């Protein structure tokens, strides 16, 4: 297959000469996918970068990027549309909690008691969820006029060769990409972005809030059911997961961790342990829906009634998007 990003042209002496490149959907998805791994890399020279190694720093950069999407601070963002990427605000707090967990393990030398599978599982889930979800959002804000046209075309197996070769260097890629189906579109992503458009157009503030909550739940369904479940929850070797699975549905991107709505890490050591009540029956469908809804409703309530505090915390998190590796 020819690569549309490689174009040959004859040089000339005229300044600012241009050559037309026709980009198809695969090219466009490659462009935005590139943005996700560059966000997690440190430049090392012209056209060179190195992936951040420290898992906590990665999680903080991810949290920072999610916060920037919510606050409309990314390239292509529109400040007047703040609130449309509502899941991103919750995602920022969730990824911050992942970072805090790694830092707590490092500081307290608890690593010996935490299995490699747990550490890798948490890092893998956070990393690939970011690769998946950030690219949908970057496409929407940068190239919104072709978003609908290319929505069905995303497939990591069809990215242009330069991006594909970079993807092949990313951690856990052999395991992850088939499990998350090469990041093809899901009905939940379609529903989530359909709601983004409705949020943008809604003139009734209270109805807009309902749309925001529905958007958040749609993206959460995608995140939980399409990405994290096949990627880490279903892993037969994931002993940690098997032991603590009861809490998985409680806590979004941070399977066994309590979500704390602050930019700071909690000083309460208990938060780094499983927080699900012992008796909870998450094999019951309605309990599962209830726990997911509880976290969403608590977040939703705080975003409505304690907005100044919540957005100040998100602004603090947003500063981590380029945090130096350790």
């Amino acid at each position, binding site marked *: 297959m020819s690569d549309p990003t490689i174009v040959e042209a004859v040089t000339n002496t005229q300044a600012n000469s241009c050559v037309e490149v026709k980009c198809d959907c695969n090219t466009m998805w490659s462009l935005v996918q590139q943005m996700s791994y560059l966000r997690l890399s440190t430049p090392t020279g012209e056209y060179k970068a190195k992936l951040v190694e420290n898992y906590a720093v990665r999680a903080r950069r991810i949290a920072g990027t999610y916060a920037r999407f919510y606050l409309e601070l990314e390239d292509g963002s529109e400040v007047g549309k703040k609130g449309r990427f509502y899941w991103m605000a919750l995602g920022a707090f969730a990824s911050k909690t992942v970072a805090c967990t790694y830092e707590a393990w490092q500081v307290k030398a608890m690593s010996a008691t935490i299995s490699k599978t747990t550490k890798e599982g948490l890092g893998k889930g956070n990393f690939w969820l970011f690769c998946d979800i950030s690219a949908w959002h970057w496409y929407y804000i940068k190239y919104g006029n072709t978003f609908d046209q290319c929505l069905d075309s995303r497939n990591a197996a069809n990215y242009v060769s330069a991006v594909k070769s970079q993807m092949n260097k990313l951690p856990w890629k052999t395991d992850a990409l088939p499990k998350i189906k090469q990041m093809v579109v899901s009905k939940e992503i379609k529903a989530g972005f359909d709601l983004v458009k409705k949020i943008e157009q809604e003139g*009734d503030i209270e*109805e807009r809030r309902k749309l925001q909550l529905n958007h958040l739940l749609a993206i959460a369904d995608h995140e939980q059911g399409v990405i994290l479940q096949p990627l880490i929850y279903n892993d037969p070797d994931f002993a940690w997961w098997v032991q603590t699975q009861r809490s998985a549905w409680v806590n979004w991107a941070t399977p066994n961790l309590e979500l704390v*709505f602050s930019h700071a890490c909690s000083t309460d050591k208990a938060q780094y342990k499983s927080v699900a009540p012992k008796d*909870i029956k998450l094999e019951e*469908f309605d309990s599962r829906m209830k726990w997911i809804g*509880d976290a969403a409703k608590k977040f939703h309530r705080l975003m409505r*009634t*304690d907005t100044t505090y919540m957005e100040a915390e998100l602004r603090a998190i947003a500063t981590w998007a380029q945090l130096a590796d350790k």
Partner: protein
Amino acid sequence: MQSDVATDAPERNRGNTVISNVSIRLNEKGTEFSKRYVGLVKVTHSTPNVDFYQVDWDARPRGIVAVEHGSHSLVIEDVLGVQAAQHLTGVIADEGMYEFDISAGMSVPSPSLIAHDEARLKTYAILQRILEAGWVPITSRSRPRLHGQARLNYAINVSNSVGLDPRYVPTLEEWMKLERGTEWRFYADHIYLNIGFERERTLLDPLKPGSYLLNFNVKSETEHFRAYVESEDRAKWQTLLPATLSKLAAMRLKTETELRTKGIPVDDSYQDPPIPALK
């Protein structure tokens, strides 16, 4: 659900005894609520300004929650959890818990599977009892005034934000077309009640069992109207409300005009709940 209130004398959660009956009162202080059910209410300091008060029934038997509201009081059964916030700072702290969220199952055995048709009928039986307790069905002020099948069709084909008419029981086919989160909204004597449903997304075959969760949201009249303005304007909601109401009325009128031209019947007899006296 029944329309009477369970007794709520102070109870203590001793040893393995599980308290299953809880009554909630809008605007009660969180600390008072906690005192009535010592050992049952979990308090979370979520932000420096807000505490959450929560009761969860993680195992069966689940809870029975009485929503106290005089002659409009309701009893909700098979409750999995009750959640409310208490502000700690500012004048809003004096309003106590001005909004409750209650999650309830459909009173079916574990693992909570129920035929979709049975879920439909159970839900509408609950709605019928709410109507019998004197709650009046309402429509969002920005949405067209529709009733019966016209409202359902609009919810399915245009936007589910119009909500549903609790007096019109949909067919199973219509029921299956409803999006999760679609609501029935009610008003009674200065209190607002919204009921929405969740449907397990992996169990959508109408011929096989599904699983459902009902979400009840009860809020004070003040909070209902305060939510009409942007979050950062909450403190001055009374000043902003008149202009906001005009804007919402214009939105409704525009949609209703469009619907009338298409021959869709608009319910002109519908009246919005009263607007509170503004300071």
